[in-house]
């Protein structure tokens, strides 16, 4: 009897307190997406009426120990999601450790009446396998690759590929011929970046095609290089060219050599060589920095034809101004295929153009929609990750 009374009173008391303040409901904890696990776990919950702040409690699952408070956050400072829920991100998590969370209310008034929510499901902070914000970049790359493959197939099947003429490259033959007449060497400067830069590969392609023409006319190709690996590659390609042309005697390791890997030491040396050897033609292909103009001007000063091309948009203006012929922008990457008339590679140019067209369309449409305040195309291109 007595016990009943106590329990009853207790029950009433309890119910009153719990009536005084509701616990946060629908507490959910999920791993933060698109991270390596170090971003932690995000906890979301419905705000509880009358609560001025929330305390986040955490304990390791499968362990008996009491939940510990990992953070307290005032209600007005908590992140409000658009569905009215609140969010807290726990970044103190250990990777792959299982946790359960609770959110407790707390109020300013001294008699600290708190209501604690139910425990969340077990959650771990794990590294994710895909970065959601990058999906459109993936789509773009896949499309590009697919188109490239398609056009390679088309080219294999013998489809003719039209490529507009690139005026700067029509000068190659003439320049080689000139060198032959004057009996002077051709200088080829493959830029100041390593083999890991696409521009350098493009340059090597051009080198090959030029060399094969020059070797046939028995004109010497001289390639002072900035990067040892590039030097090696060019040596081997020149060797191949010579053997292919049936003139292995034309190959000399001293024509393709390493000069220096310090920018202006390289420039100083190359300037000196140009001034002394007086080449008939100077090719400046690849990636260049400030030295571009020095090289071009020195080449001009000894009356050599300069044929330039670079993927550095800051140096293009100087080549345009100082050189006789310049490959503008991406013409550099097209050049190799263009001179060799290599069907497959020309095919990839087609693919490249198609992608360009695609971007073209998306920009026009997207721009138009943005003006009408419809932003979804715009947001495809948003790179704020």
């Amino acid at each position, binding site marked *: 009897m007595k016990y009943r009374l106590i329990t009853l009173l207790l029950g009433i008391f309890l119910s009153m307190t719990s009536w005084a303040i509701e616990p946060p409901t629908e507490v959910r904890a999920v791993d933060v997406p698109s991270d390596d696990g170090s971003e932690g776990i995000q906890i979301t919950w419905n705000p509880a009426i009358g609560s001025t702040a929330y305390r986040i409690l955490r304990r390791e699952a499968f362990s008996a120990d009491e939940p510990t408070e990992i953070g307290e956050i005032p209600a007005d400072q908590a992140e409000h999601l658009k569905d009215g829920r609140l969010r807290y991100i726990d970044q103190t998590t250990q990777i792959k450790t299982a946790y359960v969370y609770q959110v407790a209310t707390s109020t300013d008034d001294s008699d600290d009446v708190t209501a604690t929510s139910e425990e969340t499901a077990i959650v771990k902070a794990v590294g994710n396998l895909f970065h959601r914000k990058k999906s459109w970049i993936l789509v773009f*790359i896949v499309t590009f690759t697919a188109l490239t493959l398609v056009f390679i197939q088309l080219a294999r099947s013998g489809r003719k590929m039209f490529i507009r003429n690139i005026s700067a490259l029509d000068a190659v033959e003439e320049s080689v011929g000139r060198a032959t007449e004057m009996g002077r060497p051709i200088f080829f400067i493959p830029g100041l970046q390593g083999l890991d830069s696409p521009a350098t*590969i493009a340059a090597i392609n051009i080198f090959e095609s030029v060399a094969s023409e020059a070797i046939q006319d028995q004109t010497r190709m001289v390639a002072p290089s900035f990067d040892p690996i590039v030097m090696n590659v060019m040596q081997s390609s020149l060797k191949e060219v010579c053997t292919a042309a049936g003139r292995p005697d034309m190959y000399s390791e001293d024509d393709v050599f390493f000069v*220096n890997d310090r920018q202006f030491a390289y420039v100083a040396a190359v300037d*000196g060589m140009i001034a002394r050897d007086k080449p008939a033609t100077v090719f400046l292909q690849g990636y260049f920095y400030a030295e571009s103009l020095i090289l071009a001007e020195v080449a001009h000063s000894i009356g050599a034809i300069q044929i330039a091309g670079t993927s550095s948009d800051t140096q293009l203006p100087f080549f345009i101004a100082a050189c006789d012929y310049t490959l503008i922008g991406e013409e550099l990457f097209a050049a190799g295929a263009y001179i060799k008339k290599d069907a497959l590679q020309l095919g990839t140019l087609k693919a490249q153009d198609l992608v360009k067209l695609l971007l*073209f369309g998306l920009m026009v449409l997207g721009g138009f929609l943005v003006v009408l305040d419809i932003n979804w195309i715009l947001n495809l291109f948003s790179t704020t990750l």
Partner: protein
Amino acid sequence: MATLGTLIGIALTLCVFSFLYKDNPFYTFAEHLFVGLAAGYSIIVQIEDGFIGTIWQRLELSIHQGKTTEMMIILVAICTGLLFFTQFIPDVSWLVRIPFAITIGYGAGFAIPYTVEQDIFKHVYSTIRFNETQSSLKDNITDLLNQGESTADLQLQFKDSGLVLTPKAEIKTLKASRKWEIRDRLQFTINDSQVNQDKLNQKEMPDGLKLAFAKAGFELSPTTKIKIWKHDHRWQITDNRTFDLRRLNGKLVLDEQWVYTVKREMKPKETQVEVLNVYVDFFHRGGWQVFNMCLIFVGVICTLTYFFFSVEHRGVVGGISKVGVIFIMVGFGAAFGNTVMGRVSLLIGRVTFLIKAIPSLFGG
């Protein structure tokens, strides 16, 4: 020692400059010295940072920490590195292609995704992004906005975010309160008696002017500065925004007009907090800005057209790409002209060196 250093410095500087006249023994000397020296420097760097720093120390560390995988990785790398030397052994010389392959694969593999992100997506985005955010307000002023009139605290809120709102501003609620349009204008004339010009020239804020601003409903903050342009009759009053005052037949005239659109929307970041972004609406932006944006857009489109390889540049395409060439040329000319300044300063550097160094040799 110091004098010797200066002496060498001067001598070598002159040697290099002499190349401008023509190639000569002095330059050739300096050139070869430079080549050798630079290579020598690279040797030190390679030994210290390369052999010791990159290879030996990490190998040693991994060994004595018992990190076998790390150790294996480094060893494999070293082996591939050694393959460079196979080029001198005819039979296996092809093995040198393996380090090539790694370097190239590495380059290509990195180039693809990052160029897409940095050079394509970023540029396209900023080209078609016609509605740029001007500033953002706190979320909790929506009801203030909904009242449709510019109250004192609304003005305050705007001021906090560096914008101006006068009491006369008209606020329209569009599209079920997800969007507001605010048309506002700050305009007044002051006859000269109120503003003592000497005061303006003393960079003080004249009371008359303060008064005039107050009348127009814009409290200038105490940090207000006055800037005077050299040719008279013009003052610029810099507050958290800038007003341009000009003298027009004996009166100071100030006229600023602007239209904001306030929009609720998500932040681009994954945090889904709701913010109010203040846009200067595309059509209500100054016609000049509209023009510029369109010009950039057109420019990009046309210049891109120039790069189409698979079509003959005739007819429409030819026309468009011609326009593209115009942009390219203007851009290049500008870049060229803009760089002169930087290059000159390099020369100035050397010249000042010579001018300071040569006297110092004679104890000057």
